[in-house]
């Protein structure tokens, strides 16, 4: 054996000894590991127990938000304007959707979806962020809902739900006033980062009062704590925290009047505003034609949207606040107030020979009225009188009175937008056009033409302030107090009101529209506003609809003790007395004698071919059919 010298001698017994020693070492290592494992386990389960308990709980328990029921919107008498209806709905969660074509085909079969809706769903799916549910159908009958529910396992991404949907009993009549609700879009979610916004079935206000009063109407979501498996399967409900409904919003609106006014506008494009002329409560703010907010709440189809946005009568535009018109002669009661405030004697006579000469230019009147005092000038709407007197007092006086009576003003209202128009003045023209004010500007302003533009609410406010002599501010919410008096002498108001009485009840321009009610009279003022410059003999009384004159009317009633003020604007109605005053007459009649007003409306609706809802549905169907035909034609041509 060539053993190296340094190597120790290994024998059988020393080998056995080595084994014993080394086995002891390994045994000790095993014991050490047992201690290490015990220690590690103790660390996990004692020192870090709290943390891991929390993690285990957050594994086990998932919170599911329950959308709160939205607060009702009711009118001044508690009558519902916007309520919630229990409904069945079907959504698609884009993130979970697999095999889009098959799922949509299956849903189409189960729910009888029209092609228009399928197109909308597909488009929404294309744009949808992963977390945002796309509504497929709402307000489903239970049978259809159940049909989807039982097939849910084969339809990944499809979520049948029970929930609430917004319902507006008056439909289009309140469209512009309350707006509508809809699913929050990506921007709205990003802005608020509230998980509630992406809860399927939850809607937020998108327009009108629904949008501006969102915090009050929304309420607080309920929550269900659910025990779920790692795969997301529900084991059981642990506890439920009920939702807190949004608070009811009471408006100053009279729902009956609102609906009546909307229906009375009929086929016209226009607006009706009625104010309580003591408190400023807005009783009615109707703008027609309008969209049906119920359709919007369900998610409107592209075709419907196209129809609304292409309509020349602008159903998407709230004309009471965003429609701007030259006030025409409805401006004259305010100008009369300005004249009085500047010391013009109401009895002073101006002779009307059919016009007024300023330099080498003649400003025309609509007639040869002869000698005019203020009372008769208002009744006959004599331009010559207002040219002459307006020029005498100057623009500053008129402009000041205009602002005092509400023109050019933005009111403190919970609305999405107000177009407040222009009450021109010397300063204003300098600022806007870098030109100085001229005499002819004053003449034009005196009869409500030229630079002046106003919205229908401002017209109603002017009417209310003249009717009551009080600084009423329009209000939409809550109960108003009687407004303080305006700082002008009572006789001035009286003079102007008497002139307005004469317009309707005497030898005035709106004699045909006096109230047929015992002991109740209204005062008013007609107005006709040119849409374009007078050319030749047409004078905006004929020709294409969109070039015809606007018809305006402002009024108040009863004249003995004014309570209500009203403005009516009929776009391209050709004249205040012809188009606007009859509407105002019926609307005011409604306030005093409902059956009589309804009887009048029934007659009109019969001649128009059905109620508002019926006519809107017919028109939509006709439009959709035409659009489909057009599409088919262009498709065939290709």
């Amino acid at each position: 054996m060539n053993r190296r010298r340094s190597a120790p001698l290994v024998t059988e017994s020393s080998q056995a000894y080595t084994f014993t020693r080394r086995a002891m070492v390994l045994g000790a290592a095993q014991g050490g590991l047992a201690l290490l494992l015990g220690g590690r386990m103790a660390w996990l389960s004692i020192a870090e127990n709290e943390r891991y308990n929390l993690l285990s709980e957050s594994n086990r328990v998932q919170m599911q938000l329950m959308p709160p029921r939205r607060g009702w919107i009711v009118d001044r008498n508690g009558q519902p304007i916007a309520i919630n209806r229990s409904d069945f709905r079907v959504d698609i969660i884009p993130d979970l959707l697999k095999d889009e074509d098959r799922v949509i085909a299956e849903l189409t079969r189960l729910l009888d979806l029209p092609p228009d809706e399928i197109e909308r769903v597909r488009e929404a799916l294309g744009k949808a962020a992963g977390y945002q549910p796309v509504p497929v159908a709402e307000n489903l009958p239970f049978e259809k809902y159940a049909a989807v529910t039982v097939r849910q396992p084969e339809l990944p991404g499809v979520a049948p739900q029970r929930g609430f949907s917004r319902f507006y009993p008056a439909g289009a009549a309140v469209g512009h006033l309350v707006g509508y609700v809809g699913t929050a879009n990506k921007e709205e979610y990003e802005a608020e980062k509230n998980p509630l916004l992406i809860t399927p079935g939850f809607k937020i206000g998108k327009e009108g009062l629904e949008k501006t009063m969102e915090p009050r109407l929304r309420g607080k979501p309920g929550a269900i704590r659910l025990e779920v498996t790692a795969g997301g399967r529900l084991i059981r409900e642990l506890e439920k925290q009920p939702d807190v409904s949004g608070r009811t919003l009471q408006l100053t609106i009279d729902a009956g009047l609102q609906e009546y006014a909307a229906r009375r506008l009929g086929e016209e494009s226009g607006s009706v505003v009625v104010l309580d002329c003591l408190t400023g409560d807005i009783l009615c703010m109707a703008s027609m034609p309008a969209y049906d907010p119920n359709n919007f709440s369900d998610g409107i189809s592209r075709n419907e949207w196209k129809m609304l946005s292409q309509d020349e009568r602008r159903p998407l535009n709230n004309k009471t606040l965003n429609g701007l018109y030259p006030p025409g002669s409805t401006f004259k009661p305010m100008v009369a107030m300005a004249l009085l405030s500047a010391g013009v004697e109401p009895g002073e006579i101006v002779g009307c020979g059919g016009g007024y000469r300023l330099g080498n230019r003649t400003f025309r009147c609509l007639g040869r009225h002869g000698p005019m005092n203020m009372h008769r000038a208002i009744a006959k709407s004599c331009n010559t009188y207002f040219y002459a007197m307006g020029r005498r007092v100057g623009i500053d006086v008129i402009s000041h009175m205009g602002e005092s009576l509400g023109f050019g003003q933005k009111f403190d209202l919970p609305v999405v937008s107000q177009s407040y128009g222009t009450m021109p003045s010397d300063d204003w023209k300098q600022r806007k056009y870098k030109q100085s004010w001229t005499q002819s500007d004053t003449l034009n302003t005196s009869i409500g033409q030229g630079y002046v533009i106003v919205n229908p609410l401002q017209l109603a406010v002017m009417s209310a302030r003249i009717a009551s002599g009080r600084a009423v501010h329009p209000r939409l919410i809550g109960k108003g107090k009687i407004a303080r008096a305006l700082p002008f002498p009572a006789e001035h108001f009286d003079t102007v009101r008497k002139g307005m009485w004469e317009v309707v009840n005497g030898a005035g321009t709106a004699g045909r529209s006096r109230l047929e009610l015992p002991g109740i009279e209204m005062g008013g003022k007609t107005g006709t506003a040119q849409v374009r410059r007078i050319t030749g003999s047409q004078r905006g009384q004929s020709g294409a609809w969109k070039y015809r004159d606007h018809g305006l009317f402002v009024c108040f009633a009863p004249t003995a003790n004014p309570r209500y003020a009203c403005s009516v604007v009929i776009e391209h109605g050709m004249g205040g007395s012809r188009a606007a005053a009859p509407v105002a007459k019926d609307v005011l009649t409604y306030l005093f004698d409902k059956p009589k007003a309804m009887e009048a409306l029934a007659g009109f609706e019969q001649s128009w071919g059905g109620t508002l809802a019926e006519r809107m549905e017919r028109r939509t169907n006709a439009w959709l059919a035409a659009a489909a035909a057009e599409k088919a034609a262009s498709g065939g041509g290709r």
Partner: protein
Amino acid sequence: MMRATFVPTAVATLPWGMLWVVVALGTAGVLGLYSAAGGSMTPWALPHAVRFMAFLGLALALARIRPQTFHDFAFIAYVGGILLLILTLMLGVIGGGARSWLDLGVVRLQPSELMKPVLVLVLARFYSHVPAAEIRRIAAIWPLAVFLGPPILLILLQPDLGTTMLIVLNTIALMFLAGLPLRLFIGGGLAVAAAIPIVYSFMMLPHQRDRVLIFLNPEQDPLGAGYHLTQSKIAIGSGGLFGKGFLNGTQSHLQYLPEQHTDFIFSALAEEWGLAGGCVLILLFFLLLKWGMGVALDAKGRFERLAASGMTLTIFFYIAVNLMMVMGLAPVVGIPLPLVSYGGSAMLTVMICLGVLMAIDRSDRRDPRRR
């Protein structure tokens, strides 16, 4: 030997203390599997109990065999094992990304598991024949490559890195016990430390690299591969001192804990029985291993000593790797917890180890020198 006379000697001489420990571990397995199935004997608890009984019977049968017979048949068993491994590669069933199973109709057999005790017997036989004087020479090392090469190659082809690792660890431990010079182990340890970066960069598959990275930082990927580790720690940590109670484990019942009936059964048990239950399990395993090392120390021959310690170490490495893994002290490798986890092959292997240990124990006790 003042045993009651009505008990047969064969029964009376069984190592009863160790058997009770084994039965307790098997029972823990049945309880854990019963709970993991949501309080049901199917699909796991009942087969586990039946298998446990059958394999325990097998172990008791092995205990009747003389250790010399194991010595004599070591190479025959080795050749049989190699054939099974080749058969596995040819006809095996793929499970968990590796072709490791032979489907025998009734049972699915994992031949690489069976190879572990066989290799222990082969090594023990080899070292028992190396003359004491030769133990420090190269001749005591190179034959290992001959013995280990074929099976390791065949197992790596499956590929099953976990089993390979356990075989290598077991072999090193046996070489250590056989009396190879200490400097080999120290030098080898240093070499391995140096080689780790190279192995990591060039030899590991992407999913294996991921496992290592995730072991080092499980939170970086809580829903991917780190999910196993994180959920296991949550299960153990949320169990607290005395656990959530039998059948009340949420991590296991709601399926957050993956592989709760196999590799992560300890976490499922710890969630329901707490630190107390976990420590009892660890203690039972420790007692079993202590008994095994005791058998090795008491054995009379060199083959018996090395075989007994090798069998014990085989069981030990299962336990150590599994428990370290579920507690987040080792990367996730598919190693079950012996006797407790669901699965036949590992239990069969462990029972064979215990059978051989009992056989050696029996021959020790029959040795007149010990009386």
